[in-house]
């Protein structure tokens, strides 16, 4: 028990070092260019490679090129939700304030990438399978993931008092993590129209390296892009909360000093 206590404490201390918003802003500002520019370069390279320089598939022809956007989007939809679940855990157990802000910002980006995954999958399914949509286990579990994202987005903004929204959304975020293994293993546990994974941790990929490389470049590019967008939004959110704190503090001081109404305008010289 003692060991777990100290582990919990140490984990808490580790994360709380980065809970300091000032520290995060400095770290984020340093990190941002290293995320943004590689993301743009790799995504453009991967997309051009996939669209124009990778070979056509033996059974799918050129339609296989949809894979280079669909598969990274699908991976990111799941890993983005895993990130959300970690933020939820940090919020519930350690009351980490930055984790709450991160959960607010990851939600919409994750929902958008899940929508891309579903839409590109549909656009791939129509010419290949002969249908836009089927209710097989893989497609349905990803749709559930999309609704989990939407529920999280709505719940975290649903309360007047933000703390209550953070708490409720964190419970949903953590509980929804149950869907992740279902998505991953759906194609193995049940027979589905969706094909099994080509790339697994255990076996050789059943994919030509001429197609694997552009896929990996796209995946890396999209992942960095996801991180870059989340970090930028999170920095903006931290700054916005500072602005709100400064304004309310000034309003308080304004009330104390003049005892009268104080405009909330930024440039309205409150200290004058």
């Amino acid at each position, binding site marked *: 028990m003692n060991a777990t206590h100290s582990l919990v404490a140490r984990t808490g201390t580790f994360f709380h070092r980065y809970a300091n918003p000032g520290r995060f802003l400095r770290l984020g500002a340093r990190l941002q260019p290293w995320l943004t520019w590689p993301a743009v370069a790799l995504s453009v390279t991967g997309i051009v490679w996939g669209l124009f320089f990778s070979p056509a598939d033996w059974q799918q022809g050129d339609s296989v090129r949809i894979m280079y956007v669909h598969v990274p989007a699908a991976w990111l939809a799941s890993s983005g939700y895993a990130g959300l679940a970690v933020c939820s855990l940090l919020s519930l157990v350690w009351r980490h304030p930055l984790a709450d802000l991160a959960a607010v910002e990851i939600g919409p980006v994750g929902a958008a990438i899940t929508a891309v995954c579903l839409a590109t999958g549909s656009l791939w399914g129509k010419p290949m399978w002969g249908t836009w949509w089927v209710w097989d286990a893989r497609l349905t579990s990803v749709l559930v993931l999309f609704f989990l994202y939407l529920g999280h987005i709505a719940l975290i903004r649903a309360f007047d008092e933000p703390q209550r929204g953070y708490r409720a959304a964190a419970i949903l975020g953590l*509980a929804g993590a149950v869907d992740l293994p279902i998505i991953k293993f759906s194609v193995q546990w049940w027979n589905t129209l969706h*094909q099994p994974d080509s790339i697994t941790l255990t076996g050789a990929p059943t994919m030509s390296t001429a197609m694997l490389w552009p896929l990996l470049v796209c995946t890396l590019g999209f992942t960095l892009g996801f991180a870059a967008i989340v970090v930028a939004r999170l920095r903006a959110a931290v700054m916005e909360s500072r602005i709100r704190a400064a304004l309310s503090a000034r309003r308080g001081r304004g009330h104390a000093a003049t005892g009268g109404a104080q405009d909330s305008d930024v440039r309205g010289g409150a200290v004058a």
Partner: protein
Amino acid sequence: MTRKSRRLWLACACLLGLGSATALTLNAFSSNIVFFMAPSQIHAKPPAPDRTVRLGGMVVAGSVRRQTVGETPVALFDVTDGQAAVTVRYEGILPDLFREGQSVVAIGTASPDGTFRASEVLAKHDETYMPKEVAEALRRSGKWDPRYGKAPDAASWDTMTVRDARKDAAGPQQQHGS
């Protein structure tokens, strides 16, 4: 700190409980979650003739017969899972990916005479992604006939490039090292 670890244990316990509840539910409904039935399952337990079922399996090589009745094309083909085969009759245009050896899912009813009357046929492509030229080279060298099943072990072809395959096509006498 005890409060924090208590909250951590509580979160873990809740997640574990929820996870096992979900696992049990999915396990109980797993026959409803499967997207299609295999021909051997249809043989073992024929569904009622008015019930729409999905039949999935591989199109048997050499079994496809195409006819035209009036204006509509009619296709007859056998679908197998390796243990049993069911003859499928489908009126309409088959999807682009349809070929012998391809996995398909046919939606329709099992008629009493044993044939399966499909109202829709979906092609199921497998997880093998291979350049056209490489597939052609494998087929020509006799290592793989797509009509009779899955591609050979990925390690034997996944580094073969389009250029290798073309070179192979230029000189058919030269055999691959491995």
